[in-house]
């Protein structure tokens, strides 16, 4: 008889000894940590353990932060040469690299994402954004905005919980390179890496007030958005909140960029490299638990390969390792909050009741914390809620198409337009499809690849403006023509 063989990976936990979390945090204003009030707990979503108490900033704190940012802008940062500003950015980037492990562990504890991802994606990319923008600081006259582009002044920045440190880097690095000072609010559930970043600012001896970090919930965010002392708003988050912000700033002098939701189509043609396409489908929707605005949440499969791809996808999904985010072998971690878990469950239930077929990867979910098994729905049509609404979780809706044009029509038939994927070994088809798709980022034979040099942003309800690259930088500059 053949011996039953199994290769169970023993637990390979990353040590959390590298981080020291304070029992209580305040805000970072004018280069100093100041005490806060109205504290609320921040938890590890994988265990529901309370990690620390975070303060919810009110009017006084936001006023102080804006005042500090204004003072730093007027007296120091706007007078400094680009070359000098660049030195600070380089210094921040290097310190982030030196403290990469600390950032990765803290991000995983606070967010629930696997350590492999925070270690290999979030933190290195965050440092890369600072390195990239450090290079821009003394070259702004080559940004295509005339010979004397100017900073806006004080930027108010509100970031989401899905990539806490990385979204901070996307916001802070270009703002500083362009000569703005910032007041940044991390998401309510994931403030810890932003507060650690404040330490890095101190360590880099960044002039006081250039970066101010206030924590809190939506009320704090509203105070920033509506503050008269702020010149530019940058927001990443839900389309719902984005619309509120757009209305709020419309009658003001403020510039605004919005990076909002998505419902990306991942189109697999019958001439695709199937195994790599399956890998791309998995990476497209299960990366970061599907908490990705550009996630490939709508799989569009050519009907002739539907069966083959779905079979392979299920085999592959059965290999996904769901569990302890601190284990180095974990592929999919915890859902970031109970609230988000309920939203994912509610939308998935609508998939059931509207007649789509649910299949979840067989996996044992931990009893504590917030978890959702990687799931696909087949038999989904354009009319299903799960094909229209952003689920922001590890749930894939599978639709089919018969001709390339039908794929494009379905892909574009959405109020969103953040990203899309095209899988084909035929170059001409890839180029044709990319031209037809109305989405800000289109990946060909890959998915969820990010780089600081590449502009990122959406069409339609997915947002205004771009982040990253020269396009992203220009959002933090006023060209001559704007004056």
């Amino acid at each position, binding site marked *: 008889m*053949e*011996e039953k*063989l*199994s*290769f*169970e*990976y*023993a*637990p*390979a936990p990353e040590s959390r000894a590298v981080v020291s979390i304070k029992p209580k945090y305040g805000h970072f204003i004018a280069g100093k940590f100041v005490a806060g009030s109205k504290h609320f707990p921040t938890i590890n979503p994988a265990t529901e353990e309370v990690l620390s108490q975070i303060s919810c900033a009110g009017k006084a704190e936001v006023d102080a932060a804006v005042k500090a940012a204004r003072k730093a802008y007027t007296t120091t940062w706007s007078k400094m040469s680009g070359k000098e500003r660049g030195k600070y950015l380089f210094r921040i980037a290097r310190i982030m690299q030196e403290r990469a492990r600390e950032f990765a562990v803290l991000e995983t504890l606070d967010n629930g994402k696997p350590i*492999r991802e925070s270690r*290999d994606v979030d933190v290195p990319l965050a440092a890369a954004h600072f390195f990239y923008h450090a290079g821009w600081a003394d070259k702004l006259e080559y940004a295509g905005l005339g010979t004397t582009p100017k900073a806006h002044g004080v930027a108010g920045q509100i970031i989401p919980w899905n990539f806490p440190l990385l979204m901070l880097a996307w916001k802070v690095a270009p703002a500083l390179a362009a000569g703005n000072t910032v007041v940044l609010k991390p998401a309510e559930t994931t403030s810890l890496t932003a507060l650690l970043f404040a330490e890095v600012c101190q360590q880099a001896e960044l002039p006081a007030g250039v970066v101010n970090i206030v924590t809190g919930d939506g009320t704090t965010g509203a105070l920033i958005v509506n503050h008269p002392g702020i010149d530019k708003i940058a927001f990443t988050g839900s389309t719902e909140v984005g619309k509120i912000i757009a209305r709020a700033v419309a009658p003001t002098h403020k510039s605004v960029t919005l990076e909002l939701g998505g419902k990306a189509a991942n189109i697999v043609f019958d*001439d*695709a*490299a*199937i*195994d*790599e*396409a399956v*890998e*791309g489908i998995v990476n497209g929707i299960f990366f970061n638990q599907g908490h990705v605005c550009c996630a490939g949440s709508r799989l569009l499969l050519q009907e002739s390969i539907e069966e083959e791809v779905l*079979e392979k996808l299920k085999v592959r999904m059965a*290999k996904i390792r769901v569990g302890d985010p601190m284990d*180095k*072998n974990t592929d999919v971690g915890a859902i970031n909050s109970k609230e988000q878990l309920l939203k994912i469950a509610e939308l998935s239930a609508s998939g059931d009741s509207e007649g789509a077929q649910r299949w979840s990867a067989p996996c044992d979910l931990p009893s504590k914390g917030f978890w959702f098994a990687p799931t696909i729905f087949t038999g989904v049509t354009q009319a299903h809620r799960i094909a229209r609404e952003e689920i922001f979780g590890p749930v894939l809706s599978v639709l089919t198409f018969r001709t390339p044009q039908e794929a494009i029509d379905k892909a574009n038939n959405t109020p969103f337009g953040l990203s899309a994927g095209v899988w084909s*070994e035929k170059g001409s088809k890839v180029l044709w499809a990319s031209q037809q798709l109305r989405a800000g980022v289109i990946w060909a*034979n*890959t998915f969820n690849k990010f780089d600081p040099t590449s502009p990122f942003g959406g069409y339609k309800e997915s947002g205004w403006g771009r982040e990253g690259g020269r396009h992203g930088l220009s959002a933090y500059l006023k060209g001559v023509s704007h004056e």
Partner: protein
Amino acid sequence: MIFYGLVDGSDASLKKYLASLSGVDQVGADARAAMLATRSIKAASKRWAIDTAITMVDLTTLEGADTSGKVKALCTKAVRPDPTDSTVPSVGAVCVYNDMVGIARTHLDLIGGQHVGVAAVSTAFPSGRASMAVKLQDTQDAIDAGASEIDMVIDRGAFLSGRYIDVFNEIVAIREICGSKAHLKVIFETGELVTYDNVRKVSFLAMAAGADFIKTSTGKVAPAATAPVVLVMLEAVRDFYAMTQVRIGVKPAGGIRNTKDAIKQLVLVNETAGPEWLTPTLFRIGASALLNDLLMQRMKMDDGYYASPQYVTID
């Protein structure tokens, strides 16, 4: 069923079969292999992996300077890799040149190594540049001398010039000689075929022609058993099983020198073809230096410190 019903032996049917295969995206395959290389294998799972890897080693000597003394020493090591620890399993097979097969078989049998196979490299190894008659005779000689496994090389020139049917027919002919006496491993020399599309294509070609195992390399050409190449071959055997319900083995050879590399190979197997392939009947690692590193890591796990290299034997 002949050729599993996939091809009828004609050039046209072979071309059609190979054209039906989907391509391989190089960037994606490289990325998947790199991701799997980050798996962290510790404690009991590492111990299991080391022992499993030892049973999968095809302990190899393929040198012009090989002598009967060298081959006998290799056989002794194959049976009892660590003379001080009888819990260390024997390796899968020894792998030698044709003329050393008889010496290896006799010596193995003499020292209680009946369970260790003798693999003979064949068909004008490593280049494959000889007439068909010579290749057939080469294989027949090895089997007559007691080889239980034949590691044949394909005609890479024929493959690269598109004469797939010639490659196919050669494998079929060697398969026929092997009959039930010897397992057939087909060596592609992926370092010469270069593209992953070619690796996938030649894998399906060899499997349809009757290979029991598909093997990356001779060990004489670099690059040899790179992780993405092994990944593509493991995907091929997995897909072939789905089509035919027959499991074909995979043998990476060349460049796998230490325990870390070997464990990465096992992770590739586990997460690509599946745990069913984690047995020496379906997965072998062609290597010479690897075994000693496996032994040293094994000692380290038992003793808690690295031993001097003098505690493992050099044969």
